[in-house]
């Protein structure tokens, strides 16, 4: 069941204002407080609902907090304007940086308090070069296709994609970004719920 309610967290993004408004009306669900992942996904094919759910997911994936570590090139991005990471940081052979510029040299297990301090995560890195999982510059459709394709998504089933989004600390870190950085436009649990809805309703690709 869906109900309309006022926006919960972030303000509408300027890039897709119309879609955002539309998605809100349809998508903001009442709590259950968390998503149970153990529940067997009760698939009920609903292409329209699926596409709408993915557009909500897309809002998060294309937000700087998520996209900055899923760049089109070989360098991470940073900041609300997603500029290339200062210091010429590169992906490296395992996604964790190169030489003296490995991610963990600056990024600690958690975001450090204070202005302009590095955000953190115990496993801070980019996707590997073999499977770079690019978000930057991808249309919703292209990103949905990529998420579904085990050859591009890290060999994951959709259930595993959902688990990753729900539990991986790197994903969770986007909602604890450190001082002065915006959080993604949906709360984490809403994000997971929309992802789940997308999958359960057939993982249809918006275009």
């Amino acid at each position, binding site marked *: 069941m869906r109900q309309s309610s006022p926006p919960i967290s972030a303000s509408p993004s300027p890039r897709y204002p119309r879609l955002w408004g539309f998605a809100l009306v349809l998508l903001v669900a009442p709590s259950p407080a968390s998503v149970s992942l153990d529940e067997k996904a009760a698939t009920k094919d609903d292409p329209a609902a699926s596409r709408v759910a993915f557009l909500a997911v897309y809002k998060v994936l294309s937000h700087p907090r998520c996209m900055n570590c899923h760049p089109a090139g070989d360098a991470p991005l940073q900041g609300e304007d997603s500029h290339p990471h*200062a*210091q*010429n940081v590169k992906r490296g052979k395992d996604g964790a940086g190169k030489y003296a510029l490995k991610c963990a040299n600056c990024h600690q297990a958690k975001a450090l308090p204070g*202005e*302009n301090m590095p955000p953190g995560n115990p496993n801070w890195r980019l996707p590997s070069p073999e499977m770079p999982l690019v978000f930057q510059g991808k249309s919703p459709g292209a990103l949905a296709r990529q998420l579904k394709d085990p050859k591009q998504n890290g060999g994951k089933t959709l259930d595993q994609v959902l688990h990753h989004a729900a539990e991986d600390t790197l994903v969770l870190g986007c909602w604890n970004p450190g001082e002065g950085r915006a959080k993604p436009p949906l709360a984490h649990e809403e994000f997971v719920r929309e992802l789940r809805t997308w999958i359960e309703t057939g993982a249809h690709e918006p275009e």
Partner: protein
Amino acid sequence: MTEVVNLSRRGFLRAGALSGGGLILGVYLPTPGEAAEPPLAKPASFKPNAFLRIGSDNSVTVIVNHSEMGQGIYSGLAMIVAEELDADWTKVKVEAAPADPVYNHTMYGVQITGGSTSTISEWDRLRKAGATARAMLITAAAQAWKVAPGSCRANKSRVIHQESGIVLSYGELAEPASRLAPVRNVPLKDPANFTLIGTPVKRLDTPDKVTGAAVFGLDVTVPGMLVAVLARPPVFGGKAIRVNSAKALAVSGVRRVVEIDRGVAVVADGFWQARKGRAKLEIDWDLGDLSALDSHMQRDEYVELSRSPGAVARKQGDAEAALAASARVLESVLDLPYLAHAPMEPLNCVADVRPDGCDVWTGTQAQTLDHHAAALAAGLKPEQVKIHTTLLGGGFGRRAALDSHFVREAVLVSKAVKAPVKVIWTREDDLKGGYYRPAAHHVISAGLSEDGQITAWKHRIVCQSFIIGTPFEAAIVKDGVDETCVEGAADLPYEIPNILVDWKKAPSGVPVQWLRSVGHTHTAFVVETFLDELAHAAGKDPLELRRSLLAKHPRHLRVLDRAAQEFGWDKPLRDGRGRGLAVHQSFGSYVAHVVEISVSKTGKITVHRVVCAIDCGPIVNPDSIRAQMEGCIVFGLSTLHHEITFTDGRVKQRNFHDYPVLRMNETPEIEVHIVKSTDSMGGVGEPGVPPVAPAVANAVFNLTGKRIRRLPFRADDLKQA
């Protein structure tokens, strides 16, 4: 730059014994009323204000009165002494001089490092010191051997008797030599016989700088020392009106919170605790008069100021009339921002104020000013205050503070807490802490005749003065014009019949100060980009136009021709590349840069190559000159990228992420060519900076047809549509 009273040339060389054995050779300054000729008896009785010490262990210690901030002056000045002394370079050491009038700059009359003048200041004095010591050592050896001094020669810290080949080391001779009266009027070496000077000798300070052993101000620790950080007003000119320090004092390790005129100091056992404590301070500020300061509004104000004439810095012919009579008039309006020096070592100072004395340890460029300011702040006599100069982790003018603010802070806090205190500035404190290169607004116009000759040149500069109101005012401000605001513009070398350069003083408020190459940082940009514009308008090659206007300036011509030739100005560029050049004289040296650039679709400039030619006259260490030109070029390229701006009275920039400086991957290939020259000696620490940015701007025009009229460059200005 400017001649101030020359005190030290009234000094005399004196020699005396060093307690513990050895020779000490110093400069004796007669006190007022004393005979100009110093008495030669009692050689050991004078103050140990030496330039040179020779130990019985064969060591040669040169006491250097100029601060080592990276320019290599410790090694350069030691080379001058060692050359005339015929010292073994491997035995030469360097020590920082204390603050004392005998160590005053020979041109500026105070002990200060700046103006790219350290070598020029000491060239004569240290050659004499080295030569005199050498003559005394030879005399001592001759006396020991009972031979004529003329039959002995010195080589690599030894005196050799020519006929017999017997040898005594300087270490063995130091003690007997110290009992001699200084030899007068020792002839200096013929430069043709120099063996050290003019060669790429390795720097003395490098070994300690690659092991972490080198001691900078921040590395100083004294027993019982506490560490302080200050909460300074968020707006320049503000004052704390109410301070609640309870929460700060509750932070573990925080000892005291003290208010001084420049802010509120949190004094703790260590930096981290002090910084945590500072974050807990609750302060109500009276923001003062600048709380609405905004860079855009300030620019409007400068534009308004530029509409009426300023104090005349140069007037030749009648520029106004010639402009009115010109076939064609070009005008350019340019804006240059406030710039922070941002040396890698944030400012810091250790002070230990006691009832009967005060010691200060810091990396300073201005010992005399700091000495007096520290004495005043401590409530002590100058002779009770000692300044210990450490290595400087970069200076660029930031550490020659006209008001000695960073020293005063430490002295005042130490005095308040009755313990030695190290005040540390964070990077944020440094960037928002003022003492910037002044922002400048320029309006420049020129007239062209039908046949493309430049008939008139009119240049108006609007910027703040950091000299007016300081002890330097009498020497630097002439006829109402602060030379540091118009240098590089008023001395325009180009042969143009009618020239008018004037200066409008902008209101003070934002603390400003000299930054590496000072006024030339903005004037050269304006002059050299505008000349490029005129060349284009007249349909002339920028190199050829400059050559035609510099016929009476052979040193400009030499560096221009050399840089152009080494660059290959006559050869075609690769597709997608632009080239530009600029030439400029500052601090007595002449530098030309030719650059090759490209611009990406998004408007990002890549500088691929910089070819530099310099004529600085006689050379002490060619490798140091190369290093300084490389450094100047990197420093100049950084000015393409950063600025200090204000909103609501507050500085917007915080750290290197929003005040970017050049990094390894942005550094072009750099070639430095030193033009052989027997002309007068110039400096090298600064003259490489001014022509960098205009050369790049000219290259951008060459490639894109777009004129850069403001710094820093904005990618949006150059983005391809």
